[in-house]
């Protein structure tokens, strides 16, 4: 369910780091809680984001939820395909439903995030 090579936040985002670039999305648990996702407000490319600060918004019919950056850095890609198919966030949250890619400015930050095991026990305790 929760890929081994991802790291997670308590706000239910995930990040996969490859070559200093983090791909970011929301977790399976998050999409389930939100219900049918109808819109994603994507960050603009070039935006500088800070760990823990809001940088995107995911909307269901009755709620708008902030997405917090799991890592600091510069947004170098956003998943434009979500504009026409926000439902991908529900069907494939850990894959095709990625939201943005961030070039890490503080690579160490990743170490402070949750491992899949820790995240799942956090979900259990929540």
């Amino acid at each position, binding site marked *: 369910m929760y890929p081994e090579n991802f790291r997670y936040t308590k706000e239910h985002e995930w990040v996969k780091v490859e070559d200093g670039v983090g791909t970011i999305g929301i977790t399976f648990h998050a999409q389930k809680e939100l219900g049918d996702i*109808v*819109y994603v*407000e994507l960050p603009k490319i070039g935006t500088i984001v800070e760990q823990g600060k809001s940088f995107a918004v995911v*909307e*269901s*019919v*009755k*709620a*708008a939820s902030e997405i917090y950056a799991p890592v600091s850095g510069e947004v170098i890609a956003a998943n434009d395909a979500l504009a026409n198919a926000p439902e991908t966030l529900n069907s494939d949250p850990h894959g095709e439903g990625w939201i943005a890619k961030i070039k890490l400015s503080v690579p160490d930050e990743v170490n402070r995030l949750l491992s899949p095991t820790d995240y799942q026990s956090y979900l259990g305790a929540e």
Partner: protein
Amino acid sequence: MLDTIGISSVEDLTSHLPDEVLLHRPLNIADGKSEYEILDYFGARGAENSLGSTPARPSFLGAGVYRHYRPVLVDTIVSRSEFLTSYTPYQAEIAQGTLTAIFEFQTMVCQLTGMDVANASMYDASTAVPEAAMMAMRVTGRSHVLAARGVHPEYREVLHTYAKYSGMPVDEFGFSGETGLIDVKDLESKITKDTAAVILQSPNFFGVIENVKQAAEIAHANGALLVVVFSEAVSLGIVEPPRDADIVAGELQSFAIPPSYGGPFAGVIACKEKFIRQIPGRLVGETKDDKGNRAFCLTLATREQHIRREKATSNICTNQALIALMATVYMSVYGKQGLRELAVQNLSKAQYLAGKLNRRFTGATFNEFVVSTGKKSAAQVNSELEAKGIVGGLDLERFYPELKNTMLLCCTEMSKRDHMDQVAQVFA
């Protein structure tokens, strides 16, 4: 009922309130009155200001509020209990009537204005203008707003009030003393890289039809949006709509909404498709129900205050549903051909009267125009007209000190030739 609740008198229901918050005396308001007394009272108040305020009394006032004939069907339909006494259509299954009518309203406003999306209405144009400006701020990420002095003076006053505390510096640019059109040079000199919106009105406050295309080119070349305001919706029957605008903010009072001393009216914001997520106010969308039948519901609610709270696009939560319904019925009654013919009548009447007077500006006008009052002051002309039982025009000096001895006059399909001839005589 008292027994069920377990109390002995209704006063027990407030016995838990601290004594100091209770009112220990009757309200100082007279005892209740009968229907007859109430209508007698309001009838008397109506009679006190009846000159110029019944359909029968001639008046040449426009300036944002227009006297147009109200088809009888309008009140017949809006008086139906199902429209008059229903709530905001949050429960779509039992509000399809209101929702469908709003969807038709949105569609007709788009057809009229040449925009792709229209909201379910705003309070009026004066509040739609700042909402449009704030929308442009969100779209462009800029904050400066430039408004033409040809925009209704009271709309601009409201814009300044809203702007004062929301980090939105507002500047104004002038008009040509010859044509009455915007002063293009002044616009070009004041527009900056931080300008979010250029706002102009067409027909403007002087009745003059602006060159929207040219203004759009200037705004867009500087990365700003063009907001076009209208106050006389009937003009859209024969005047080219502001297709080059990004946002249109308008007033629909002309569409069967009584002048009613200034309200309630129905404003509207319409825009290009790409700005739909930033439009304020309610929106009705088409969808299907469980069984696959066409249905309508309020949509994109996440823009609104009850979900986004402090991050909402606006704090607005009422629209003007019943008033918008008046406009919807009006547009249906006149339709494609009627609205055009009605507009031609307005234009013809205005041309007739303007032809007898000394026009102040050379720009093309619809049903309003500015005239010089010559040797007489505007106040003097108006008092001479009043002696003949006619309400004259608006003394423009009130809003534009440089336009001393000028007056804004308006003719509609309700203006009679005989009265127009009398006006011309007073000016002569």
